[in-house]
């Protein structure tokens, strides 16, 4: 049904399976040319591709029934109901399918990066053949935020009293293709403060004040240096660099703030220094939703995370499944990620990034509208990561990172059938060994 090239590892699996059946012997993996995408990539990019007949969940422009998407040079060149398909275009028939932008994971814990020694630059350590990348494609996740530290919640590399450090990046799951994998690095400052971390917040504030002081002196110096040649340029210690980037609002700070008082403490810092902040966890955000909304701080939340109310405080506390719905009502923007943001074969199925839509669907159970829940795993996540100009919705001009599903993304029975990044098919359910054997009766 789908007319397309098979150009990734899944075709290798398939080929092998057939070969093994035929000879029941050890076989070679593939004929030369069956793996590796470059070589033919350039030719493919010049060619047009059309996805025809599906229901297009555009995210920004509602659902286009029986629509067409045109892809040229890896970008969406046209989208709508009345689109002429050029004769030479490769046509993917998506009749009866759901077509939507590739999912964006606002937090990912990529084990492939973790296993390497200390990483100061993710671009230098990316592995496009990482097994997790192929699992991400099979799960419909095409873009992800990754850090280079040992846990998604301990993002700061130097432990102890240093509350800032380590790098992070937004990557695309371009299996086998290193050149197109990195989107941006870094996209935030990794900050770790909480009332359980000794001196963390103290040092964070101290350095922010030092940096602010330095910037003030620098401004004064630049104003006066022409008049007074004897003036010396103020000195700065290199450890202040990340703080200066925060104060200049070049990068946002990403920090975990689970409880209402953690969130309020972070908001206080926003008020004092005017820095951009992305808060993660935010289990009790519903309690202080108005405060968050007032400052326009975006969140990364996990709707299924639970915690019982605390008996030792007078106000409301603990988790609620209505968290996302209340935040939406207050006007807070948020992305949704699962509690354990990994792609892997271990732990419990349906609770990691391989079932990202399930996490968003749970927010719908708690009263959130479907549109916002979809945005939380596509466009809003992309906005929070600072890559919404390229991904997160089906719009002309954006990267052709597209997934085709056999049903509504929030239906427990739906599967991703096809995943495209930059217009190239990198996953085909039928060709892979992951889910190709699973079919439903209807």
């Amino acid at each position, binding site marked *: 049904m789908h007319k397309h090239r098979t150009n990734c590892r899944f075709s290798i699996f398939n080929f092998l399976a057939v070969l093994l059946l035929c000879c029941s*012997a050890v076989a070679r993996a593939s004929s030369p040319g069956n793996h590796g995408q470059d070589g033919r990539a350039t030719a493919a990019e010049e060619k047009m591709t059309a996805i025809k007949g599906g229901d297009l969940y555009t995210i920004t422009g509602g659902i286009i029934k029986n629509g067409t998407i045109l892809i040229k040079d890896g970008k969406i060149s046209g989208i709508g109901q009345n689109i002429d398909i050029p004769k030479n275009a490769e046509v993917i028939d998506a009749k009866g399918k759901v077509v939507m932008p590739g999912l964006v994971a606002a937090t990912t814990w990529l084990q492939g990066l973790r296993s390497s020694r200390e990483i100061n*630059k993710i671009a230098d*350590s990316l*592995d496009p053949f990482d097994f997790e990348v192929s699992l991400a494609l099979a799960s419909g996740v095409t873009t992800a935020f990754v850090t280079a530290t040992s846990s998604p919640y301990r993002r700061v590399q130097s432990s102890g009293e240093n509350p800032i450090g380590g790098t992070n990046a937004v990557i695309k799951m371009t299996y086998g293709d290193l050149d197109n994998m990195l989107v941006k690095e870094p996209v935030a400052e990794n900050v770790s403060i909480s009332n359980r971390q000794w001196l963390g917040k103290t040092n964070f504030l101290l350095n922010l004040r030092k940096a602010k002081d330095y910037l003030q002196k620098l401004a004064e110096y630049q104003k006066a240096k022409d008049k007074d040649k004897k003036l010396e340029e103020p000195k700065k210690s290199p450890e202040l660099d990340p703080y200066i980037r925060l104060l200049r609002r070049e990068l946002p700070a990403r920090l975990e703030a689970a409880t209402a008082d953690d969130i309020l403490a972070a908001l206080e810092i926003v008020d004092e220094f005017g820095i951009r902040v992305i808060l993660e966890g935010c289990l009790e955000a519903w309690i202080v939703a108005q405060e968050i909304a007032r400052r326009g701080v975006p969140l990364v939340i996990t709707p299924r995370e639970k915690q019982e109310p605390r008996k030792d405080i007078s106000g409301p506390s603990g988790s609620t499944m209505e968290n996302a719905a209340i935040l939406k009502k207050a006007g807070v923007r948020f992305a949704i990620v699962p509690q354990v943001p990994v792609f892997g074969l271990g732990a419990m199925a349906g609770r990691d990034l391989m079932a990202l839509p399930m996490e968003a669907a749970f927010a719908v159970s708690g009263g959130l509208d479907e549109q916002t829940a979809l945005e939380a795993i596509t466009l809003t996540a992309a906005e929070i990561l600072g890559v919404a100009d390229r991904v997160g919705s089906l719009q002309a001009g954006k990267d052709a990172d597209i997934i085709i599903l056999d049903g509504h993304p929030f239906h427990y029975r739906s599967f991703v059938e096809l995943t495209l990044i930059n217009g190239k098919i990198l996953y085909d359910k039928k060709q892979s060994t992951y889910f190709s054997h699973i079919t439903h009766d209807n």
Partner: protein
Amino acid sequence: MKKNRIYILLFLSWAWLPSAGTGEEITVIKADRIDTVTSGLIENGVIVIRGGKISAIGADVKIPSTANIIDARDKTVFPGLVNPCSVVGLSGSPGGEPASNPHYRIADELYPFQDVYRRILQAGFTTLALTPGGNGIAGQGAIIRPVGLPPRLLPARRMAGESVDAGAGQTPGGMLITESGLLMIRFEANEKAKKVITEAFESAKKDIASADPKIKPLVRALQGEIPTFVRCGWPGAALHLLPLLKPYEKMKWVLVAGPENYRIAEKLAKAKIPVIFPAQIDFEEFTRNRINVPRILAEAGVKIACVPIMDNAEGHEDFLRQMAELVKYGLDKETAKKSMTIHPAQMLAVDYRLGSLEVGKDANLLILSADPLEVGVKIHQVMLEGKIVYQAP
């Protein structure tokens, strides 16, 4: 009387060792089959050896009257095996951050009196490249004849008051074919490793005439005088490596590959990078699909050399069987033969004297009961530079 007995012992125990070639001795091997590897199979052929080198080879070769004749009827003669990348008998590799230590030489760290070398020689390997470990630029590898002496012979020699200079194999110098045969790099995809490697080569580029032992080997590697071996585990890491080394055009580099590298077979073929890979049938990651990586690489046009799966005496003793298994599962037989002789010799840049049976090359050869890739093949004799160094019991 006691002294005499020691002399006899010494004579017996050293009789198999190659002595410094006199150039006068002529040996002739008459065999049913001579597999030259590079110029086909010669049936009912003759090899004439003078001064440790092959002076004539073919079916119609005149046999000198003074020659010692080795009758290898019903036998196959095959070049001595070459292992291009081993750490056998070396101290464990250091861990730690990537660093630049091009001055580190295996030749200076060699402990030749290890029985393991003799066992490897008896397994048919007449040449071995020993390579340093350590992250980053690890140092210089040595190309050796694996002629170890069992340690127990040492006291006897000392008691007899023998001169130490007793020819090949008995001193570290005699064991060495090339002291600085290659530059070894261990690469992991990270910022630090890239920085260490790039900075080292860039500084060497600026200081080409330097005699500094920390720079000179880098210059030689840059100019392609010695090959550069890069150990690089995963194919993703190799993708980081390719652009890193691309600017150094003269450099002759060889990828010492880990599993899964068949995924970049086409890229390696295009960049003409030869690959060293264990003679192993692998599993595709997280599957039960078995894959013949050497075959995939070879068929994509990559020049391959195979090394034993286990880098120890047992691994080398099992090597021909491992190679036969690769052939059983589809690796071209001639390619398999090349991948254990001439290809590794080419990668080590010693193919002008090793790796095949040709006039002018060292008489390093094996006398086998059958084709080397035949199941159950037996090594009857191993010849190193014209001397029989192993005779099967």
